[in-house]
């Protein structure tokens, strides 16, 4: 059982420590009785989850269980699919984001997102990072310069790109592109960062870099990360939610999930019996 051996990973240790230090953190996202349908397909069933500030929350589960759907619901990106219907509540900082009066653009300004496949714009590196601030009305070149540098540093890619900020982002490697996307997301200083399998398209070394980055970022941001890689969840997350067929089977401290899961299905999954 590979998961057990991973438990000795130093990163995980750190995670555990910080976990304890912040036992009564504020709740940033509170999902209540969330149901979601794609047309007739019931993709999320009665989801109840309370996600804490300044933690890394991992979402795991077999393919098609609704992980991406859930995380996309948190910034209402899921609504780009025309057939979607949603019921229930998602409270973000106490306000129901599913409310009609809630502006998605405001929500998405506070909640950044990193996607499975790195998706930089076909523009220069600089323009990629400056995109968010610009659309939000920041035009001052000096401020933009500062933001770009700060964000790229924040995403631990500054040193690699500082000499070619004006080159096209598609010249970067996959791992660099993904960190650029993280920088792009940091540039508007979000409150929460959603990540949907951010490392699944990356090589092991790039993966490691991104994982380290996530660890750092959580000092400042709340992070919700979907992963199909259980070791990754174990390494970097504070809490883990296990999804199956659109339901949350178990949600608890990562430690607990991976050592003493309370549900038989969770155990089956993390020991590799299915999925």
């Amino acid at each position, binding site marked *: 059982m590979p998961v057990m051996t991973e438990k000795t990973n130093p990163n995980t240790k750190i995670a555990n420590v910080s976990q304890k230090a912040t036992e009564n953190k504020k709740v940033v996202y509170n999902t209540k009785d969330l149901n979601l349908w794609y047309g007739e397909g019931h993709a999320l069933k009665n989801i109840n989850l309370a996600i804490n500030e300044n933690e890394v929350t991992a979402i795991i589960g077999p393919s098609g269980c609704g992980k991406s759907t859930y995380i996309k619901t948190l910034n209402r990106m899921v609504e780009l699919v025309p057939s979607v219907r949603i019921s229930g509540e998602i409270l973000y900082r106490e306000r129901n984001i599913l409310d009609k009066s809630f502006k998605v653009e405001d929500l998405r300004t506070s909640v950044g997102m990193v996607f499975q496949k790195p998706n930089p714009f076909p523009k220069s590196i600089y323009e990629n990072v400056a995109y968010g601030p610009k659309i939000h009305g920041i035009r001052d070149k000096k401020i933009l310069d500062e933001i770009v540098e*700060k964000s790229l540093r924040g995403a631990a890619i500054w040193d690699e790109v500082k000499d070619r900020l004006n080159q096209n982002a598609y010249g970067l490697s996959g791992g660099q592109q993904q960190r650029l996307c993280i920088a792009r997301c940091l540039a*508007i*200083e979000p409150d929460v960062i959603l990540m949907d399998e951010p490392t699944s398209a990356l090589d092991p070394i790039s993966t490691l870099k991104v994982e380290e980055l996530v660890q750092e970022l959580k000092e400042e941001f709340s992070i919700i990360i979907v992963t199909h890689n259980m070791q990754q969840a174990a390494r970097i997350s504070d809490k883990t939610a296990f999804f199956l067929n659109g339901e949350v089977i178990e949600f608890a401290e990562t430690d607990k999930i991976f050592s003493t899961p309370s549900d038989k299905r969770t155990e089956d999954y993390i020991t590799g019996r299915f999925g």
Partner: protein
Amino acid sequence: MARSAVQHDNKKLNVSEIIQQKKKSRSVNNYTEKLIPKILFGIAAISVFTTIGIVLTLITETIAFFKDVPFIDFFTGTELKPLGENAVFGVLPLLTGTIISTLIAMLVAIPVGLMTAIFLSEYASEKTRKVLKPLLEILAGIPTIVYGFFAFTFVTPLLSSFIPDLEPTNILSPGIVMGIMIIPMVASLSEDAMSSVPNAMREGALALGATKLEVTWKVVVPAAISGIIASFVLGISRAIGETMIVTIASGSSKNFTFDVTQSMQTMTAYIVEVTGGEAAAGTTLYYSLYAVAMTLFVFTLIMNLLAQYISRKFREEY
């Protein structure tokens, strides 16, 4: 819960706060967001208005025309003398001119276009196709006026050396040249239809000992027939609407005849002649322009709708 942002940097910079401020001062944004789709819808509607505009202008003046000239006389009249004191407006000379030139064009375009499509889709190697297709596209991109020049200064003299009775302006030469112009269109649409026939179908026939010709003729062509016929219909529509080639090379004789060596006028050429010569508003001559244009429009519209119908209705289900 404003978080102090600075971490790697000791400069004070709080982006999220700036953004919040900007947001408040930019209610305009919202307004644009609502306005844009409406503007775009307006723009998209212009294409519809264009159609409506065409139909309306044609209909109103056509109605005025039929007040002067009875409907029946127009469509059954074999005499067309639009000028002078006792003007007579029978559209049949123009209709025969149009139909005959279209027939000649399709007699060239259909066999040659179809054979070209078959060669490209069934016989040519990938390399050959890569060379030939762009060349055919060049043929398709040549302005019609150039074909008109070609018909008038080259094809007609060439033909009259075989056909001594050929008049200097005649319907045969522009008909043929129009056919040549339409070849690439028929070829490329038919080839698309044939290329979308799955290879499994060809293999099935080859495995029975069929030759390539038998595969093509008895399997591929029947399977792609709706796309092929649609390409013919579009070609016909194109030939009906073609103007400059016939205007230049077919002259303006309004005789009701079926002799292809003679000059005939098509509907399109009539429109050019009447607008080019004299187009003083309000006369019957002026209205006849619209009646003819309306007839032309209806013809091509029917052809276009027919082509759409054929390729939609009989879409191959393999």
